[in-house]
């Protein structure tokens, strides 16, 4: 018992220290490894020393077998996934944790017999089941949307469906806790189904711009579900680990909402875009964007003093991070000052661009965050938008009817020249037109971002 508790204490400390170290670039990798070691110790100690009513852990071959299966699959998936697909991978693993928590609640409820539960136990089991299930189905939908096999479902009716589903989940939890049996003997299965459905309807209408928030929120949900498991077993390491992730995840979610100037409630019950977006797109059909040739673009950059690159999801899709770095080096070879302006929600997850560019060996000091980048833009000769759209949309500042109005953006239009690399004139993920493309300073360079950058690099060499 002593060894078990001391292992749990070590586990809890490594989680706290690990999270802390993950908050700084120099120690992040070690932090992750410490937390993993702590997890290993806690798991091993559970198998070896856990006792309930005098019985130690049984079925060990089965447990080890299950862990072997999970390890092989998890390892292979994590090693094979492309850097661009990281966000949906995190979402998937998060869903697995949620499902695990939900299953624990189900089994515990049945193990104790259906009657004679005190309300504390019922509350923990029902909340653990509901939150775990929502996290599972929601994460799978988020994975599908980021992976492209599930499309956005928009419409105001979704809001009503969502509110009804949420009310149903809450009503069942409260009803069953206050008066067990209110919803009949199969209440727990009904709750399971409703919660799974709510997870689906909760994430389906949410557009790409909000996906980071949703994944972070679901992450903290799973943390809470794990903590309910800890409460159930009086297990300190599950409790600390779960609550830490629950609270840290919630704060991260709130920070992201603030970055987009939206409230969490608005993200949860409202869907991004909606009616206004479609109307905005049609009215501007007459405008014509100016194109720029490769050679002109190369010359413009080569003779600039300061070039700022604004990357977006298009960079990830085109896998253009390496060639983007080559382009940066080619310009620096000519004495041009090059930096990257990173919008906090560019890409599909906060920090997505940082991870991609770091993969291509772009040094951190080159990555400038939005608040620091904006004041420098009036002194910038050329700003190059690579596959970004909504994060450089002036409508966020000057069009109160726009769905993204109020979201802080990179003020690309303040730069002396703007080159936009884009495959077509299609609107971005939020589904709204971007006036930046028709701005007098803006020139469009159509084509795949990777090809365009590659061609620019060769043009630069020929100059």
């Amino acid at each position, binding site marked *: 018992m002593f060894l078990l508790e001391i292992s749990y204490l070590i586990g809890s400390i490594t989680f706290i220290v690990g999270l802390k170290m993950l908050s700084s670039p120099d120690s992040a990798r070690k932090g992750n490894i410490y937390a993993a070691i702590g997890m290993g110790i*806690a798991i091993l100690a559970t198998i070896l020393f856990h006792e309930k009513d005098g019985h130690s852990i049984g079925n060990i071959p089965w*447990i080890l077998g299950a862990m072997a299966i999970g390890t092989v699959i998890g390892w292979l998936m994590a090693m094979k996934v492309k850097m661009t697909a990281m966000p949906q991978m995190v979402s998937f693993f998060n869903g697995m944790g949620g499902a*695990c928590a939900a299953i624990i609640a189900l089994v515990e409820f049945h193990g104790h017999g259906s009657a004679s539960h005190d309300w504390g136990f019922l509350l923990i089991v029902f909340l653990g089941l509901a939150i775990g299930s929502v996290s599972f189905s929601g994460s799978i939908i988020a994975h599908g949307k980021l992976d492209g096999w599930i499309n956005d479902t928009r419409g105001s009716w979704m809001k009503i469906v969502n509110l009804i589903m949420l009310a149903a989940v809450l009503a069942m939890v409260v009803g069953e806790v206050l008066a067990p049996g209110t919803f009949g003997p199969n209440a727990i299965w009904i709750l399971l189904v409703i919660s799974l459905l709510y997870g689906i309807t909760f994430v389906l209408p949410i557009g790409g711009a909000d996906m980071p928030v949703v994944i972070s929120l679901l992450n903290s949900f799973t943390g809470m579900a794990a903590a309910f498991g800890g409460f159930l077993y009086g297990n300190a390491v599950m409790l600390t*680990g779960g609550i830490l992730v629950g609270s840290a995840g919630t704060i991260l979610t709130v920070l992201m909402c603030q970055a987009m100037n939206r409230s969490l409630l608005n993200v949860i019950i409202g869907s991004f875009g909606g009616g206004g977006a479609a109307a905005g797109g049609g009215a501007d059909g007459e405008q014509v964007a100016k194109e720029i040739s490769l050679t002109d673009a190369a010359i413009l950059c080569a003779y600039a003093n300061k070039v700022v690159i604004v990357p977006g999801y298009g960079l990830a899709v085109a896998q253009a991070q390496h060639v983007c770095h080559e382009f940066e080096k080619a310009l620096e070879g000519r004495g041009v000052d090059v930096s990257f302006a990173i919008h906090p929600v560019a890409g599909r997850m906060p920090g997505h661009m940082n991870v991609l560019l770091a993969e291509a060996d772009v040094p951190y000091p080159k990555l400038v965050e939005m608040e620091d980048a904006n004041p420098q833009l009036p002194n910038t000769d050329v700003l190059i938008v690579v596959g970004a759209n909504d994060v450089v949309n002036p409508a966020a500042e000057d069009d109160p009817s726009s769905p993204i109005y109020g979201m802080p953006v990179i003020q690309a239009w303040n730069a002396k020249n703007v080159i936009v690399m884009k495959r077509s004139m299609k609107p971005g993920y939020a589904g709204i037109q971007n006036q930046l493309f028709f701005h007098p300073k803006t020139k469009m360079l159509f084509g795949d971002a990777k090809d365009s950058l590659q061609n620019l690099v060769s043009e630069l060499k020929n100059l």
Partner: protein
Amino acid sequence: MDSLATFFLENQHMIYIVILSVFLGIEVISNVPAILHTPLMSGANAIHGVVIIGAIIVMGHAAQDDYLALSLGFLAVVLGTLNVVGGFVVTNRMLEMFKKKK
């Protein structure tokens, strides 16, 4: 009201852990640069894989003839392991890219 008081007294220590952990979680990540948001989220994702301990307990104390508990427990251990192993490996792969190049 009595049951509320009993619940509180019985679970006093855990309630303290919860409250303190909430503040600790907020404090620990409050100074994170945006550059580390994705790896941090991924690392936190791996840490909540600690739920696997619950799955091991379910499986380890399931009676030999309780097939519902055994099969669900087995599934839970597989899923929990996926969360832990996949979570830490993905985080490590992301952070490998932040390594200082010589």
